């Protein structure tokens, strides 16, 4: 059998079993982004704090989770922790692993976003008697967030694909279900063509969302300061690729 059947690929694309895997992939991504953002914000705040214990812990956390493969983290949580009597359901394991890992990346993005807002902005807010909360909410956060969108977008794109690693600990997301179909019918190219199409659709949809976000939050910066020595914050480096 040495041919590729487009019909079979299309059939796999509309396969109900595979579609449910797509939903699991989306669910994992959304949950990991939300969890990762909340935890990452906390890690970033700790990293920026003047307390050496807090910033030291945060530094260690980021170093650890960015310095080890997500695959190992997932396997350790799923198969290693039960050895210590700590046991979670499969889906919880996947979520814990993805959130812990994503938080490390997002923490650095959040931190660099805040660091790129010039000190003069905070000083102007103080001089105007703005409260710390108003300064954060109305002055620093919106400016930091605008700078965070591009690296945040890249990180979420990576995360979307990284959820496929959860297949190794038997979470039935898109990748795992593709494997299962493949082992049943041996139409390797056809099955993975369908899965590839789904990943491309998901990342493209996210790209479009990201572009709209950038446009929405960048509206004031569209008009670049003329003449004035612009004190534009440094451009962000793109998020590192995941293992």
């Amino acid at each position, binding site marked *: 059998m040495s041919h590729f059947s487009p019909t079979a690929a299309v059939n796999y694309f509309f396969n109900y079993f595979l579609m449910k895997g797509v939903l699991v992939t989306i669910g994992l991504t959304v949950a990991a982004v939300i969890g990762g953002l909340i935890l990452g914000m906390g890690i970033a705040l700790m990293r920026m704090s003047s307390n050496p214990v807090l910033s030291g812990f945060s530094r260690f956390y980021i170093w650890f989770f960015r310095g080890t493969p997500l695959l190992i983290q997932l396997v350790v949580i799923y198969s290693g922790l039960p050895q210590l009597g700590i046991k979670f359901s499969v889906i919880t394991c996947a979520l814990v692993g993805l959130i812990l890992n994503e938080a490390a990346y997002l923490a650095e993005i959040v931190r660099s976003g805040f660091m790129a807002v*010039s000190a*003069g*902005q905070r*000083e*102007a807010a*103080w*001089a*105007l*008697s*703005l*409260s710390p909360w*108003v300064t954060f909410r*109305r*002055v620093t956060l*919106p*400016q930091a967030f*605008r700078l965070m969108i591009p690296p945040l977008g890249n990180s979420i794109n990576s995360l979307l694909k990284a959820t496929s690693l959860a297949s190794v600990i038997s979470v039935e997301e898109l990748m795992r279900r593709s494997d299962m179909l493949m082992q049943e019918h041996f139409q390797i190219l056809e099955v993975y063509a369908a899965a590839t199409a789904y990943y491309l659709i998901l990342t493209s949809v996210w790209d479009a969302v990201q572009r709209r976000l950038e446009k929405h939050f960048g509206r*004031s*910066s569209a*008009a*670049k*300061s*003329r*003449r*004035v*020595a612009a*004190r534009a914050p440094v451009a962000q480096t793109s998020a590192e690729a995941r293992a």
Partner: protein
Amino acid sequence: MSEMPMNTASGVAGAMAQPQLREVPAVRMEAVYKHYGDFTALNEVDLKVAKGEKIVVCGPSGSGKSTLIRCINHIEKHDEGLIYVNGIELDHQRKNIDAVRRDTGMVFQSFNLFPHMTVLENCTLAPMTANGMSEAEAKDLAMHFLTKVRIPDQAEKFPGQLSGGQQQRVAIARALCMRPKIMLFDEPTSALDPEMVKEVLETMRKLAEEGMTMLCVTHEMGFAREVADRIVFMNEGKVVEQAAPEEFFKNPKSERARTFLDQIIH
């Protein structure tokens, strides 16, 4: 729009604003020190500014002019000595810092407008959030001061769409919206193209005429000569010399001030 005096405490015409000696001074600094590590940025600074007085601070780069002015609203924290602003002691207590910041407005060399807000939003944010003003009231107030600095037509624009001179005038209006009693300027025209310096100085001159107490770091000696009641010359963290402008320019006492003036006037 209703008549809104710039500042209720001293809304007297400039010419009549004789510093009243028995009154609480606007600023009083006694033996103030500020260190950055081993470096002494302010070295036993004494300074007294009467209400309504206009002070120009000058001196070579790194002499501590910015540090001095930034200690007055506690954007920089002094290490030793006493600072009183309108009688409120800056003792690092939150409530006193807040009270002092409410009495002072600051204008920065780099404007520091909030780039993600329109000109109007820049001006209404503090009155609405820190003073609990309604949006309508805050807008009226903002338009009043934007008119005063002669850019009411730019209210809906973002700072990035304005020229440097316009941005700095917005920054002045934004500070005035909190109705400060003292205005602090840190080289407000140094980041501007020459043709825009004039419009900003004009705005400041008007403010001075209305009786505002002003401390201004600037190298604009023409402005100093015309507007200042007193020049404060700094060098290496110390106030080296204080004198009326005529006196200072004609007959500087210290050698350091003489070389400084030679350099600046060429």
